[in-house]
């Protein structure tokens, strides 16, 4: 081993769906400096050991978003992840393709579903054709207006959030964190004239499938914080449209529910969210739970100081107070 290097063991996911019966992990061992980026190591493997290794990359500077992959089970840009800390913690580096996208070959995944979801949110300014901007004119924004979407333009579309998202994994109807963060960026853009329609559409096109688990915000290499922007979108959708979907009914129902007694009335919330039909649908499951947990169908006690809670609602839950 050369001075200043470490023995780095890579277990790399290999799969060619056209030829291989199943994926396998191939081991490569190299002497590398601890500060070597994972991408540099992979390119060295491809150049010096195994030219058949397939991967996507371009800028090597954490700008293009091409080299996102799983490094020891975490969504990472290979170009900005150093091998040293990974080896120190796990003893080896397991490299796998992004999740929630089918594998084309080795570390290269099919991106079509990711981009289709992106296109669906119309990621561009919608301007009113009846009021075209005069030739040569500008449409300036104030610094305060720009501040509302300070984080979202940092997105490099690497799909790390899409890969980390359990809602994407479980339900193709969920457009994914990146698409929704992008939607937020246009909804709050004062120049955009489509935001009412955008909010109405997204309510029925997956917005309420977000689990607010914040896995996307952890995975994002650019700190776009998609989960927080999705929360903002939900609050705006409720303000504009009220409770039109199960998700928005649940949010409004929850908020109103606490106003009764200060604590959640679990049974009442089911009715508020799902209506009488929904309650009937959930009756067998509910009865199953009530047998062990009879408190489920009892009203909670009324907390002390409900007068204070009521005054807070009176002060802050007026329609004109909403965002």
């Amino acid at each position, binding site marked *: 081993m050369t001075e200043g290097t470490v023995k780095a063991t890579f277990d790399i996911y290999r799969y060619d769906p056209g030829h291989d019966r199943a994926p396998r992990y191939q081991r490569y061992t190299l002497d590398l400096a601890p500060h070597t980026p994972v991408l540099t190591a992979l390119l060295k493997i491809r150049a010096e050991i195994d030219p058949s290794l397939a991967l996507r990359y371009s800028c090597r500077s954490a700008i293009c978003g091409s080299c996102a992959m799983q490094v020891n*089970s975490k969504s990472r840009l290979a170009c900005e992840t150093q091998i040293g800390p990974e080896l120190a913690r796990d003893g080896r580096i397991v490299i796998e393709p992004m999740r929630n996208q089918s594998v084309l070959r080795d570390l290269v995944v099919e991106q079509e579903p990711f981009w289709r979801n992106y296109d669906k949110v119309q990621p561009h300014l919608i301007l009113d054709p009846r009021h075209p901007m005069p030739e040569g004119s500008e449409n300036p924004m104030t610094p305060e207006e720009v501040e509302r979407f300070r984080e979202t333009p940092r997105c490099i579309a690497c799909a790390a959030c899409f890969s980390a998202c359990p*809602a994407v994994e479980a339900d193709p109807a969920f457009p994914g964190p990146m698409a929704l963060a992008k939607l937020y960026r246009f909804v709050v853009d004062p120049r955009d004239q489509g935001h009412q329609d955008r909010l109405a559409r997204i309510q029925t096109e997956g917005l309420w499938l977000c*689990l607010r688990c914040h896995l996307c915000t952890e995975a994002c290499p650019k700190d776009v914080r998609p989960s927080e922007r999705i*929360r903002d979108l939900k609050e705006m959708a*409720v303000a504009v449209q009220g409770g039109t979907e199960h998700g928005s009914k649940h949010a409004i129902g929850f908020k109103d529910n606490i106003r009764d007694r*200060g604590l959640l009335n679990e049974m009442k919330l089911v009715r508020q969210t799902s209506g009488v039909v929904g309650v009937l649908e959930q009756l067998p499951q509910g009865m199953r739970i009530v047998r062990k947990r009879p*408190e489920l169908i009892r009203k909670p006690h009324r907390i002390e100081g409900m007068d204070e*809670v009521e005054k*807070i609602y009176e*002060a802050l839950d007026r329609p004109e107070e909403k965002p």
Partner: protein
Amino acid sequence: MRLAYYPGCVAQASGKELDMATRWVCRSLGVELVEFPKFSCCGSGFSDEANEVLTVALNVRNLALAEGAGLDLLTVCSTCTGMLTLANLRYQDPKVKARVDAALAPLGIQYRGTTKVKHLLRVLTEDIGVEKIRAKVVRPLGGLKIGAFYGCHLLRPADELNWESAEEPHAFEDLLSAVGATPVYYRGRVMCCGFPIQFVKPDTASRIAGRQIDDAKVHGADAMATPCPLCHLSLDAYQNQAEKAVGHSLDMPVFHVPQVVGLAFGASPEELGLGRHLVSTAPALAKVGAGARASP
């Protein structure tokens, strides 16, 4: 140690066994739980989607109650922990603070922002320490392989919760080792339980829950344990639905954190409310010699 006890809605109702076990464990560790009958619901990540400032104001009222008594706040739910912690942070935004203060000032409520929000898991591992826990074990949970399931809002967003690594936490596993159990590491331990959309799209919620339970099972877990009663609902009370989603039986007992500790400290299954679970804990209890009377 004295703490302002914030049980949250579920532990006061359908998840009462969590409250029973918390009280038992705190009593045995000499942690005094100070009751605040004025505490209101944290909003659970739902009410803020309808009105964030209102939700922050209600939680600032909760935080101010603890501050007035000079106590840190003890939570037993990942979601309550997240909501109260985020309220502390959102309150630092001058625009939010101005509106919250305007609503609270007429009620004589002032908040200086000093209340620390601590989940029981954090108190056990940080303030009390696993060594002291280990010393109190009279019924080591030897042989029991337990998959920790953290619950999103205890870990993420990591820069706001300011606790363990959100991707590779270990406090929960340290605690499990201290009581003699063998922690099981699996990807699902830091994933979502699916509960937030249980009433929005039940099939999707069950697929998510099923995936995590199955992951724990594939990695050899005899049982799971969680610091969140909402995760517990999803993993235990709705496990039959998760089984339908994954297409096979799971039979995975799911413990609350203080139930695991209480068992190791010698509490009876009845004292910990283990008979209230939907999935029988009897096979897991039999493995640690705690009798099989709990869940029929």
